[in-house]
């Protein structure tokens, strides 16, 4: 049983990746959106000295909105292609959810690895604690992937699409967002780094993962 779940997760992940590689427009849109957000922020600041706290907030706002542009597609794409029913018939819930979550995480980590260094260069930020920054970004991506995959499944079949995903995401992701900003500010040299926040983020990420996993069964198998 365990083995078949892993196999299923791998299959879903590889399928997403294959389709993603053949449909480069989606990737291009996501990365260009991130670049545009970054450019806006950077140009608005005009290279002026900015407080670490504000810098941290700017980085996370850029990351969050770039992620919102990419993460909501995992189920919406199936819905538009009409393949959702096919996946319903053949796919066990957990393999579908976790496979898609893994793919979203993969996308978000790539996106964060693209945005963060660019942000550091454009805003001329000196990082005092690089490992804290890395840990925070990874845990942030994990949280967004865990919550985003379930929320993306919720919004399929909605009559209004634009914005709905972000509206539903924000309250749930705040517990990741707020400590992430605190930690990032610390990593940028603005005050002490409270390492226990990293533990808090990891714990909340885990709660989101378990919650999504339990609730997804109801979405996938009920009527």
């Amino acid at each position: 049983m365990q083995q078949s779940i892993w196999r299923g997760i791998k299959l879903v992940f590889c399928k997403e990746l294959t389709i993603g590689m053949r449909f480069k427009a989606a990737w291009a849109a996501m990365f260009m959106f991130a670049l545009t957000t970054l450019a806006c922020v950077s140009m608005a600041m005009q290279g002026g000295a900015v407080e670490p706290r504000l810098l941290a907030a700017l980085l996370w706002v850029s990351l969050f909105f770039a992620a919102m542009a990419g993460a909501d597609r995992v189920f919406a794409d199936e819905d538009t292609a009409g393949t959702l029913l096919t996946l319903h018939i053949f796919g066990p819930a957990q393999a579908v959810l976790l496979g898609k979550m893994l793919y979203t995480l993969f996308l978000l980590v790539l996106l964060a690895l693209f945005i963060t260094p660019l942000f550091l260069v454009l805003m001329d930020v000196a990082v005092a604690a690089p490992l804290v920054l890395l840990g925070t970004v990874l845990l942030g991506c994990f949280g967004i992937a865990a919550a985003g995959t379930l929320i993306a499944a919720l919004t399929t079949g909605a009559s209004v699409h634009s914005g709905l995903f972000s509206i539903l995401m924000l309250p749930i992701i705040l517990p990741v967002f707020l400590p992430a900003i605190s930690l990032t500010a610390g990593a940028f040299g603005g005050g002490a780094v409270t390492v226990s926040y990293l533990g808090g983020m990891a714990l909340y990420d885990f709660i989101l993962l378990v919650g999504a996993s339990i609730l997804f069964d109801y979405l996938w198998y009920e009527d």
Partner: protein
Amino acid sequence: MITIKFEAVTQSFYGRTIFQDINAKLRSGTITAVTGQNGSGKSTLLKLAAHFMLPAAGRVSVVEDARELRREELRNRLAMVTPELRFYPRLTARENLAFLLGLRGIELTETKFQALLARVGLRDQAVATTVTGEFSTGMRQRLKLAALLAAEADIWLLDEPGANLDAAGRELVLREARQAADEGRLVLWATNDEREEAAADAAIHLAGH
């Protein structure tokens, strides 16, 4: 031995009644035809059998050896051909089948794949390596049949499986459905074709409202 039971089943959407008080018992090893005009709820009945939706009233249950199957168990035991079923347009026929069957824990070897294509009459060599987005409607329908045959499912839910197929294709569907029933599968078949209707062992007629 699997039985699908419809007990006083009524279905409605947005207050409009589709059908009322349907009672039926379908058994493994038989083909049951679902007939009725367009909009009489044939597809809805199939979705109810698959537990893809809940009835407005009444009860649909799938029982195996006196034990009712849970939704997730049932999902694993059925295969479906419906017009709403779509393949991933950016994946090839082989990738599509390998993915979908893999999710059911069935491995698709090259020989198995080739045999399958031959069985549903997709003999053209290019088929295996073409993305399904470039398939004709008829080719896609045949690929759906291939997925159905390879899924090794105990319950077959067929919604107009002969649609978009030529005479040879329709013949193929009839033959395969008969064979499936003889092998002990439960076949539920929504159709408007008299010949297909005649091939069934039992029928549910939806009068429409």
